[in-house]
């Protein structure tokens, strides 16, 4: 059955991520190796949670904005996070958590700004306003970020862009723990909104007529999806493609009903990102590829395949 296959895929992905890597670790040593225990395992799990969160967020936003091209990073969050990270670096804020925390706060500020923009003039989170607001806030943040980097003294700021490109290099058990404490709440909110999101696909007025509290639904979904994305960006930078494509891949198999689509997207996104990260680590060892490139390289052919099968029926 489909769910078994997806669960199986997830387990395989996690297993491969633990067993494979640029550093050679013999199978017999897997349990004892610090590389496996402190680096690979938390990284695999973190990748799963991040990938799953991005995919669920993407699916929810696609339903909310009624736009199949919606993506978790459309709402200015990546710009806000980048600005936060760069500000932390420019101000030489100390501590190992300074950058992720600053990135998270930056993303929250962007979220609040776009939310506020979405409420102007009684627009009530009109998807088009959200989209434009997100683009505007993101562009503004990006401009300020570039300005800071240009005028700043520290040469290392130029490397800040590398962080923004995305990657799971910062994975550790601590990071994983924090994320796992944080993620369930917005995730549950989105899962609980699965049915109303189904009816929202008909349009706001028809959804109201069917009994959905559309205003509250939009706010809930926007906030929960954005909070998930903000955490993902703070922890792993901007990993594109997962939030956009995984929901479509899952729709091809599970259909449009969000009660199935959201959990499937979580597992699918998690598996995809973990597989992509393993490939990113191993493909050109000892070098490492940016994981966003690999997600695109894997995902696009998959999607083309699915599209063919789907339009043929």
């Amino acid at each position, binding site marked *: 059955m489909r769910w078994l296959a997806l669960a199986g895929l997830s387990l395989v992905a996690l297993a491969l991520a633990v067993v494979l*890597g*640029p*550093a*050679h670790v013999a199978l017999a040593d897997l349990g004892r190796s*610090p*590389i496996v225990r*402190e*680096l*690979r395992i*938390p990284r695999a799990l973190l990748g799963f949670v991040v990938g799953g969160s991005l995919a669920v967020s993407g699916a929810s936003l696609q339903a909310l904005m009624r736009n199949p091209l919606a993506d978790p990073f459309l709402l200015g969050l990546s710009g806000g996070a980048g600005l936060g990270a760069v500000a932390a670096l420019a101000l*030489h804020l*100390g*501590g*190992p958590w*300074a*950058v992720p925390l600053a990135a998270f706060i930056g993303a929250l500020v962007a979220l609040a700004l776009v939310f506020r923009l979405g409420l102007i003039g009684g627009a009530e989170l009109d998807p088009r306003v959200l989209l434009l607001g997100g683009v505007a806030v993101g562009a503004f943040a990006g401009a300020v970020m570039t300005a800071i980097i*240009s005028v700043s*003294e*520290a*040469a*290392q700021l*130029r*490397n800040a862009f*590398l*962080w923004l490109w995305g*990657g799971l*290099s*910062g*994975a*550790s*058990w*601590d*990071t994983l723990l924090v994320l796992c404490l944080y993620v369930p709440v917005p995730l549950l909110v989105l899962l609980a909104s699965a049915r109303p999101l189904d009816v929202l696909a008909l349009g706001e007025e028809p959804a109201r007529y069917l009994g959905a509290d559309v205003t509250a639904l939009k706010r809930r979904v926007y906030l929960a999806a954005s909070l998930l994305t903000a955490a993902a960006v703070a922890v792993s930078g901007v990993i594109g493609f997962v939030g956009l494509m995984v929901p479509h891949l899952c729709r091809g198999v599970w259909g449009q009903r969000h009660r199935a689509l959201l959990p499937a997207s979580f597992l699918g996104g998690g598996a995809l990102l973990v597989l992509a990260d393993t490939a990113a*680590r191993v493909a050109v*060892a*000892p*070098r*490492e*590829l*940016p994981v966003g490139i690999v997600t695109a390289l894997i995902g696009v052919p998959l999607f083309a395949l699915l599209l063919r099968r789907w339009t043929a029926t």
Partner: protein
Amino acid sequence: MRRSAPRTYLAARLLVSLVLLGACGRTGDRRAAASPASGAVTVTDDAGHSVTLPAPARRVVSVAPSSTELLFALGAGAQVVGRTTWCKYPPAALAVPVVGDGLNPSLEAVAARRPDLVVLYRSPLNETAAAQLARIGIPALVVKQDRLEDLARAARLLGVITGHPSAGDTIAAAIDAVLQGPLHPPSSPPGRVRLAFVVWDNPPMVIGAGSYLDQIAGLAGGVNVFHDIGSASATVSLETVAARDPDVIAVLDDSTPVGEPAYTARPEWQVVRAVRQRRFVHLPADLFGRPSPRAAEAVAELRRRLEAWQ
């Protein structure tokens, strides 16, 4: 215009002084040392373009810190009329007006200095810039500056084009001498300090064989554990750093001195023994930040610091 008048005057005075100093004799060609050689000069730069000037360059804008340093070392400091914000060595360079930060040269700012030559380091973006400069009639020299032998070649090129060919030869010879040092591409006999240059932590970026830092490490008696990577720098997985287990991590200290790098406190970096045991070597940026004519000094300095960790 009025602002640059005193500079031009200063430059002229410096030039005269240099001429007189030059006349007092240098090792090498006496004839050329009498004054910056006059007459047309032609060189082929590292992009394969032939650059011809009717006379040695009088007003050079240097868009890379190593070229700036090199120009001053050649005795052509007075001919430098533009630098980037990062060109801070030697101290005399600070007096030269800034035209940008070098990454994406503002051609207007460069052109405003009315240069007769612009020196760029070799990168795809800069090759476009060079073409654009050529279109507005400003000759541009593209110079590779990744490894020490590039610097030797650059010294000869810049020496000729600024009219200090003998100084160029001297510097190039000095660098060749350093390179000829007792150690060639390092094998790993026991007792040599294994190090890694970590320039960024997330994602981890290290220096590879394509960089002068790798060369300096080898010449100083160390081994760059990432010597197998051909490029100047590369992103690697953290587990690779952990697996290669360098004895010591070399950190380039910026102008702002920090204690230990920020990632020292991060949990995932503790898997790397050198981080766990706080085995860091801090290298001052002005000596190690770019390939410099003071390579010999850099090698000696690094050798000294590595001995502490042997």
